[in-house]
């Protein structure tokens, strides 16, 4: 950027008008209308009554609680599993480890709901473990832990990628000196590798938290009955009940939650060493 500035090329705001107008029409205008919709009262006027009724309702609070619980649990597990896997891939060279880390990149383009579908075949009533396990009642898959399992399977690579990048910049001489000072491999991991990779782990974790809060496809396709998340609630209100104002209230809260997480995440990214 400093190079661009030193070139003396001037910024011409004129050219920014077109993309910003397009974004305004396609994104800002709809979001604004949705926000306005949230304050439409049942009689067609505007006011806080509908908003407060939804916010205070048990349905919303339950969904908020489920969303946060699922997201926090899945994120914690993703961070743990992601750290373990990234360490294994980076520090324990085995055949295909390089190809594997490239495969993980491709995995990120895989739609999330397919994980839900494939877990149905693994753990569902008709699946491999379903056949082995208890035949009584429905599988754990259609509740809290099923969603968490699917999200962990899908979002772990989002934690691994920044970690693998951080490990690549690690000075291996530090690890060697640490072990020459008498620290065991696991001690070196805990006392040298983990502190060095912590910023990347936290950045990956907060991205993971954001994405799990926003996750929709997995829960929809899995047909989960026991838990409802905010995106599911939005879908239910808008598509099944045609309650646009109610859906807009939930969506507005969800957007506020996600945006605050997202800008926190970007601030964290800015502090990462390049």
């Amino acid at each position: 950027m400093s190079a661009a500035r030193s070139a003396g090329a001037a910024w011409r705001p004129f050219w920014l008008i077109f993309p910003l107008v397009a974004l305004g029409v396609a994104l800002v205008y709809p979001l604004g209308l949705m926000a306005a919709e949230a304050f439409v009262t049942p009689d067609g006027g505007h006011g806080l009554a509908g908003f407060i009724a939804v916010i205070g309702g048990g349905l919303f609070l339950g969904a908020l609680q489920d969303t946060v619980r699922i997201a926090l649990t899945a994120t914690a597990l993703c961070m743990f599993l992601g750290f373990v896997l990234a360490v294994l891939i980076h520090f324990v060279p085995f055949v295909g480890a390089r190809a594997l880390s490239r495969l993980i990149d491709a995995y990120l383009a895989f739609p999330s709901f397919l994980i839900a579908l494939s877990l149905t075949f693994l753990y569902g009533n008709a699946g491999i473990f379903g056949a082995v396990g208890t035949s009584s009642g429905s599988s754990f898959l259609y509740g809290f832990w099923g969603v968490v399992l699917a999200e962990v399977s899908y979002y772990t690579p989002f934690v691994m990628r920044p970690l693998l990048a951080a490990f690549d910049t690690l000075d291996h001489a530090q690890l060697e000196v640490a072990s020459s000072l008498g620290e065991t491999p696991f001690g070196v991991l805990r006392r040298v590798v983990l502190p060095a990779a912590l910023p990347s782990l936290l950045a990956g974790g907060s991205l993971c938290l954001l994405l799990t809060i926003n996750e929709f496809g997995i829960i929809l396709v899995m047909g989960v009955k026991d838990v409802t998340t905010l995106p599911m609630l939005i879908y239910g209100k808008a598509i099944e009940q045609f309650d646009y104002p109610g859906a807009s209230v939930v969506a507005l809260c969800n957007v506020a939650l996600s945006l605050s997480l997202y800008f926190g995440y970007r601030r964290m990214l800015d502090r990462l060493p390049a």
Partner: protein
Amino acid sequence: MSDPQISVRGVSVRFGSHVALHDVDLDVSAGEVAVLLGRSGSGKTTLLRAVAGFTHPSEGRVYLDGRDVTLAPPHARGLGMVVQNYALFPHMRVADNVAFGLQARRRSRREIDETVPHFLEMVGMSAFAQRFPRELSGGQQQRVAIARALAIRPHVLLLDEPLSALDAPLRAEMLEELRGLHAKLPEMSIVYVTHDQTEAISLGHRIVLMRDGRIAAEGSPRSLHDEPPNRYAAEFFGQANLLPAAIEPGDAHGRLVRVCVARQVVRATRTAASPAAGNALLCIRPHDLRAAAGGGHGGDDNRLSGRVHSVRWLGATQRVMLGIDEVSIRVDLPGNVEAPRPGDPLSLSFDPERAVLLADT
């Protein structure tokens, strides 16, 4: 202690088809400073890493204090180690860096609190205990790295090019400090890897010159300099002149022999590394040659004559290139005498004790 502190027996290291170390033997006794000297790729770092446990020998054994540690992991060897870029832990303060090894050994809080200041003081870094590594200069970081390695009270300290990231004046200063440090810990053995012969000469009790994964020469700095065992050692130290020479027939025994160099006959010293007869190399240092005055009397009768090619004044000395027949000789004359001019004839004399004969290989 009769056992050597470090004993390397027949160690080879292969990386795939590349042989990095070829059947090396090395003993370092307690209190000795052994310098592994060589160009990059000579195997000196591989040898150090085999001692430290980061490289596993394909063949051979490594003993520390008489104990076979060939397969022991690095953390079980109890060696101190200092590397080129210091490798201080960036997220720990100086004091925590120094305490690292003690904590890994589960030492008591009290012992750590006593030991860390002691070693920080030894390297003159007491005032910086609460700093982070990034707040220190290169020389300061190196002092902390040394204190960290010493804090575990190792019997052996391994130093891998510890000064190469520092600028020249600081390097000389740190070299002095390392000598002082060893005087304070006289029982500790040091293995010091470097490519710099000045460091090797000023620090080493013994220099191990390495080349292509083997030990090319080994001995005290003085003996390697004065009586190099082979051509490589002679060239590595101080740019010796190596002149093709033929041993005069009939001079089969005795310490001083007559040799023919460029159709002139001079006397030189025979060592254990010299051939018995026939062709040899006359090895003589540029500063062991003097301009011979006038006629040939007394000790000045051992002389070579030629024509001056070029003269370069270097301050304390002047480097004269002298052509004798086909060979050319480097001569360092004192800087305060009148310089010969290119094209002038010049006679050089030298003490036959300072010229040794090497095998011509």
